[in-house]
């Protein structure tokens, strides 16, 4: 009996009681909300549960990666939305990384004009809402392109008009699998060569051009296989038929506008991360490396970038997750991402709770995966103290 007494003395029992009371309060509040919701749903004749997922959707979706027809179910339509969200997120992150690095490097360029232009880019894009950029890209820039009949044709097989961007579509013939196999083999060989050259360097003191050997193998092997198999690849080029182009790979304006807006907007933020990363490296280190006669490229690769990465990665993780979240603005310009498709479903059957819950779960899951990957990258980049 003296255990509770001791707890009472230290105020811990009181604390525990308070915690218990709070939990009870929350449960009661949840119960009230549940009752309210039930009453409201009944009053408005709204069903609950995920039964509607196997009901026919009945609305069309443009811009799908996998086949879809209005006769498919709501569940499948929502799945299409998730795929589109993932697609935009994946391509967007890759593209914005390249442009962001470009902008960041331009920001610290020794060329005054280039640095100023990059600064103007960053300060302009960061200070206007993304939604405005999307509206402008979709409603003014892409809508202002010429019609199909007078499409722009920047290079063979590529057509740009106000209905979309058309690119040649690769058609894989028998035997293309071997080319892919050769590519995988090339990557494995390049990896082994690079590991081995490090061991060899440490033992013999001779640096082998492993980068050149590796890229030679990665490019060379598939090319040789490609011709050995008798060029098992042909291109389907979009052709003008009737009122529009048929065939080829098509990127619709909704998709293009979303990608352009997301990528350019996020690149301004990533550019700033890259700039602050590069500037965080002590100038003394560069001077020291120069005085040792280390070449400019090696200074960048071996001294600046590894240290800059430690500053860049955490901030960029945030920007990647915000790119994924911002992809939900697709709903405003009609690209059928998860939010857009879900919004249509809510409009048809009013089951907002289920759809909004799913949205949140999927976004949380995507952002969790990004965080896990980036934390892993970060742990690799951090200084290993000896």
């Amino acid at each position, binding site marked *: 009996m003296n255990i509770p007494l001791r707890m009472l003395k230290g105020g811990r029992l009181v*604390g525990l009681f*308070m*915690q218990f009371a*709070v*939990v009870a309060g*929350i449960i009661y509040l949840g119960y009230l*909300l549940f009752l*309210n*919701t039930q*009453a*409201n*749903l009944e*009053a408005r004749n709204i069903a609950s549960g995920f039964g509607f997922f196997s009901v026919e959707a009945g609305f069309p979706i443009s811009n799908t990666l996998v086949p879809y027809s209005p006769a498919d179910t709501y569940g499948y339509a929502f799945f299409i939305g998730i795929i589109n969200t993932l697609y935009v997120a994946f391509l967007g992150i890759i593209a914005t990384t390249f442009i962001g690095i470009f902008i960041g490097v331009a920001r610290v*360029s*020794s*060329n*005054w*004009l*280039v640095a100023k*232009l990059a600064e103007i880019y960053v*300060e*302009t894009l*960061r*200070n*206007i*809402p*993304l*939604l*405005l950029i999307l*509206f*402008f890209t979709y*409603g*003014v820039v892409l809508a202002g392109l010429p019609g199909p009949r007078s499409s722009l044709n920047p290079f063979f097989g590529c057509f740009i008009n106000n209905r979309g961007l058309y690119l040649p579509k690769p058609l894989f013939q028998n035997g293309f699998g071997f080319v892919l196999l050769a590519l995988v083999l090339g990557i494995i060989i390049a990896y082994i060569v690079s590991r081995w050259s490090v061991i060899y360097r440490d033992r013999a003191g001779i640096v082998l051009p492993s980068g050149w050997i590796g890229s030679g193998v990665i490019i060379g092997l598939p090319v040789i296989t490609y011709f050995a198999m008798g060029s098992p690849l042909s291109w389907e080029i979009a052709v003008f038929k009737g009122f529009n182009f048929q065939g080829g790979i098509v990127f619709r304006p909704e998709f293009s506008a979303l990608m352009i807006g997301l990528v350019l907007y996020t690149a301004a933020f990533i550019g700033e991360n890259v700039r602050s990363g590069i500037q965080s490296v002590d100038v003394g280190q560069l001077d020291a490396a120069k005085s040792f006669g280390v070449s400019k490229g090696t200074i960048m690769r071996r001294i600046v970038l590894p240290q800059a990465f430690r500053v860049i990665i955490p901030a960029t993780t945030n920007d990647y*997750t915000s790119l994924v*979240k*911002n992809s*939900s*603005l697709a*709903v*405003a310009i009609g690209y059928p991402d998860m*939010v857009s498709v879900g*919004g249509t479903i*809510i409009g048809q059957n009013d089951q*907002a*709770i289920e759809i*909004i819950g799913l*949205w*949140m779960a999927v*976004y*949380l899951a995507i*952002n*969790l995966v990004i965080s896990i990957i980036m934390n892993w990258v970060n742990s690799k980049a951090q200084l290993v103290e000896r």
Partner: protein
Amino acid sequence: MNTPPSWSGSSLLVFKPRPSLPAPRQTVGIIGWLRTNLFNGWFNSLLTVIALGLLWQTVPPLLSWAIFDAVWTGGSDACPPGYEGACWVFIFNKFRVLMVGLYPGDLLWRPMLAGGIFVTLAAVTVLRLMNPGKLIALWFLLPLPFYWLIAGGLGLTAVDQSLWGGLMLSLGLATIGVLISLPLGILLALGRRSNVAIVKSICVGIIEPVRGVPLITILFMASVMMPLFLPVGLNINNLLRVQIGIILFSAAYMAEVVRGGLQAISLGQYDAAKSLGLNYWKTTALIVLPQALRHVIPSLIGRCIALFKDTSLVIIVGLLDFLGMVKASAQDPEWLGHDTEAYVFCALVFWIICFSMSRYGRSLERQKEEE
């Protein structure tokens, strides 16, 4: 003994430096600046030429569109379709709608008065004409009279909320959002650092999910889902629901910023406060928070900028904020084909407000570094 050499006499050689030569002409003045900043090496020269070419391609057409060929006066017939040049008349004509939405014309003095006070207060804040304590008090007090001015009641004609819109609505949503979400965020941040498990898990359970989902889903939740949670018969109007959503969203981000500041406070401060006999709330309010908040002012201003930009999303749940009014105006059949002007004007207004805020944040940062 050796006689010391005599230093007198004409045989003495005195070192006289020659006057230094002027610096090579290629390294000073405009030419020097050009050589070091634009043409040092073939690669930079190439970049400069490309950049100049790019500017030559874009700036003159842009200037002639925006200024020289632009239409500044006249009516809707002043800019015929296909006219090359900005039709700023369109913006002048729509100016009232863009600023205050469908607010009744005879009551315009009310939003104008509120706007005037708002701008004055913002200027006083930026120019630091008043001591910070009074300023903060003013910022927190003003929303009430503003609400009275805009909404009416108590002697003023009531104006329905469906008539509010434009920049007024954007600024209102953002300002109220910041003013309420900041204290809420501070509470969440304190709760997250609490030793009491249940408080901590509630705060983490609010902050992390909200930060992990897009604002749109929160707005949908506020606009579509919240009515389902309320008791049957109780209705909260859409504007208020959206405002609640914005506050919740912003509070989660504010909490993380404030948490960063709390982590920068050394444990010695807590010990010192404890040894003075201060309890938890006194320690927090008098010792910890003033220092923590000062640390994170620049990030807080960053959050304000982000929130102001984010208010543009309310268009998706059917409110006609600034961007919404811009979009609606561009679709006016009487003024078709002026989307570009509308969006450019909208971008300019957003840019001026956000850029000034970020400059203000940077100046505070510099001031902090000097201290």
